[in-house]
């Protein structure tokens, strides 16, 4: 596609529920990144994919968070047993060439009530 697409745009869920956030990167971009942006903060790294594999998942806060990219294109961020502290904007980005920055989507605003 022309840009990075993230769905849903907004998600409200109850504490303890499971959620999935989807990212569709720019066609041909092999690198894909997930970031989390809490209110009043800059984005913080969660996980990075190169192709189908998670090259670096050191930013995932705990084992309730998991992400996949089975065919090297679309990625899904999965959060189990959601907590109120998980409320944030989850941003996805993709890149073609290192050093040129990333192209970001518009994010998913997750609210856990």
């Amino acid at each position, binding site marked *: 596609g022309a840009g990075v697409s993230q769905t849903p745009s907004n998600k409200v869920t109850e504490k303890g529920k499971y959620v999935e956030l989807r990212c569709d990167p720019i066609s041909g971009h092999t690198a894909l990144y997930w970031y989390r942006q809490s209110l009043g903060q800059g984005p913080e790294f969660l996980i990075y994919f190169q192709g189908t594999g998670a090259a670096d998942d050191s930013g995932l806060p705990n084992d309730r968070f998991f992400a996949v990219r089975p065919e090297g294109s679309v990625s899904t961020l999965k959060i189990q047993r959601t907590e109120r502290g998980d409320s944030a904007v989850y941003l996805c980005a993709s890149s073609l060439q290192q050093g040129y*920055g990333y192209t970001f989507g518009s994010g998913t605003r997750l609210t856990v009530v």
Partner: protein
Amino acid sequence: AQTVTQSQPEMSVQEAETVTLSCTYDTSENNYYLFWYKQPPSRQMILVIRQEAYKQQNATENRFSVNFQKAAKSFSLKISDSQLGDTAMYFCAFMKHGSAGGGADGLTFGKGTHLIIQP
């Protein structure tokens, strides 16, 4: 690990004025990239300008320019002839050169500066 500091949580200027946003960073690397991103209420992070650390010449993009001081580890953004559409959050970001591109070597952001352009 790299750190990026933006010391101005919020700035407000009149339309058509020039404004400068500050950014400092801390790294032991010699070769890296620096970026300024704009985040309007739509939430999408939009790349404004990019600087390669090995280039001494400051990057410019139309009304946007940077003052890159490598020794001082400073990377400020100047917006000339500011417009109402410039109102947004602005984030300074650092990336190590030659990294795989992700994780601790990927984009590291500051906390942002909320820029308000008054009519």
